[in-house]
């Protein structure tokens, strides 16, 4: 049986489409943080996604929830980007679409590769202050006060906007779209699709060409596992389990689990 891996062995790129069409949990929290700021201070929210045309779904969702504008960066040449190239592409898009931004909010990590690297690298690329894994934040004029629990330290942090925050999944609870919101989003979706030249980048500055890392191989940890399946009567299974693996289990327990009775039952 050939298992379908979300990886193209010819080009060495992860096929993110399989995870696409679904907003990352952490990005939902980042959007929630943006919506709360909009409600208390007023704001214009631009949702930005990078990916195949299908990723537009995510922007519809963001608009339905209350974002004002969507930007989809979609260009074959952007495929295979590692975090360094991605942060460069996102920075170019932000400078094109919204050069006077006050705040960039990112999910602290994606569920597909979990690098958690794009946010901090984007802050570097834009040369603005940045903070990662933030649980709560409040904005007073241009001062952002944030809290986070990192490595067993509770921290209160401050920085001035324009700035970048990566939002953790433990502080904000994403809202669900109301139906009116959804209708609005579909009635007049303000979504712009942009390619490499639209954001003023040279094709050599995006995608795999601009990525110092290469994926040599992707393998499944589950596919080739020789796996013993036990089924049948529960009592029998449990006896078999201890007969076959009693030394392993007992070893971890620091006890001898030799059968003392019913050995042949």
């Amino acid at each position, binding site marked *: 049986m050939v298992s379908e891996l*979300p*990886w193209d062995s010819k080009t060495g790129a992860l096929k993110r489409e399989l995870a696409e069409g679904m907003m990352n949990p952490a990005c939902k929290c980042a959007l929630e943080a943006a919506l709360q700021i909009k409600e208390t201070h007023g704001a214009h929210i631009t949702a930005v996604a990078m990916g195949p045309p299908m990723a537009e779904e995510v922007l519809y969702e963001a608009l339905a929830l209350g974002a004002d504008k969507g930007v989809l960066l979609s260009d074959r040449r952007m495929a295979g980007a590692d975090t*360094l190239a991605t*942060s460069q592409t996102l920075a170019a898009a932000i400078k094109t679409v919204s050069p006077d931004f006050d705040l960039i909010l990112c999910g602290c990590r994606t*569920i*597909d*590769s*979990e*690098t*958690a*690297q794009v946010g*901090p*690298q984007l802050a570097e*690329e834009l040369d*603005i*202050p*940045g*903070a*990662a894994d933030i649980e709560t934040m409040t904005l007073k004029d241009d001062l952002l*006060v944030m809290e986070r*629990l*990192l*490595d*067993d*330290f*509770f*921290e*209160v*942090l*401050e*920085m001035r906007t324009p*700035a970048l925050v990566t939002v953790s999944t433990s502080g904000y609870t994403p809202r669900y779209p109301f139906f009116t919101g959804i209708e609005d989003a579909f009635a007049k979706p303000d979504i712009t699709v942009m390619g490499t030249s639209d954001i003023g980048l040279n094709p050599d500055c995006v995608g795999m060409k601009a990525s*110092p890392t*290469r994926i*040599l*191989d*992707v*393998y*499944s*940890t589950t596919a080739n*596992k020789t*796996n*013993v*399946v*036990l*089924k049948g009567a*529960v*009592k029998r*299974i*449990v*006896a078999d*389990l201890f007969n076959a*693996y*009693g030394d392993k*289990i007992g*070893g971890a*327990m620091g006890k001898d*689990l030799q*059968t003392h009775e*019913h050995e042949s039952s």
Partner: protein
Amino acid sequence: MNDETGSEIWVFGDYRNYFQNRVTLQLLAKARDLSRKISARVCAVVFGCGIDEYVAEYAAHGADKIYVVDHPGLERYQIDAYVALMERLCRERSPEIVLVGGTGFGREFAPRVAKRLKTGLTSDCIELYIDDEGILVQTAPAFGGNLMAVIVTRDRRPQMATVRPGMFQELPHDYEARAQIVRIDPPADPPPERLRVIRSDRRPQTDRKLEDARIVICGGRGMGSKAGFRKLFELAQLMGAEVGATRPVVYSGWANHDALVGQAGKQIKPMVLFSFGVSGAIQHTAALTGAGFVIAVNKNPDAVMMKMADVAVVADAKQVCSAMIKELRKRIRP
């Protein structure tokens, strides 16, 4: 002057939770191992204030050479200052490889350093080796640990990786070991502190029983009810095991949040893991990559958790739990 030729492997000295998190020592041991193949020197890089005790520890755990920047301005982990210093040192001394522990701070710090140096960085590696061309081959989980990606940075230097804690074994403390200590002055004009740390308080030490347990029994929604889930505690007590839980279980109040295993909870690395009525969502399995022998119980033989297991038991989770309790009572002699 000491010998300054030859390549270097650097390990960032992340000592903030020295006694709870030994990742720096684990990386020094791994760096020793890697250094043989490319005849590199193993170097620790430490920033802080009054940090001689850590310098001594790193010397005793495998560092040949330690770069130390000791200054009151570096007393707290401060991202702008630490990144600028690391960037400067890398530019001045061109290490071949830079390894950073995958702590919260490390995972914010390393991407910024890599960005400034325009080099590649692989996050959360669980395995590292040097191939025949002398390139660092890095294995990192993708898609929640169900897939592994093997990644290299061919042309840029340094080759950078953050590494998950608990993946490598630290070297025993060697009192005889001596390292070359290189003290470096902090920059005369430090970068502006754009992210200011107003407060940084150590939280009362969190309980690490689950993370360090030799046997973990994880229960999921398949335990059916709070009473069903409670049975796992009885089993755990017999085995001297700790009980972990999936998110729905915690949300239903069958177990405390402390028991949550997964992306939003704890990483575990038991020798033996029992998984009862767990489907195997990536947010959960991401935390299981360090588990040794896995025994899963599920009614559904096709559940991802069953595919990941060494032994897949197709049965009712509660019944298996009760039968195991009975069987163990027979087998464990007082």
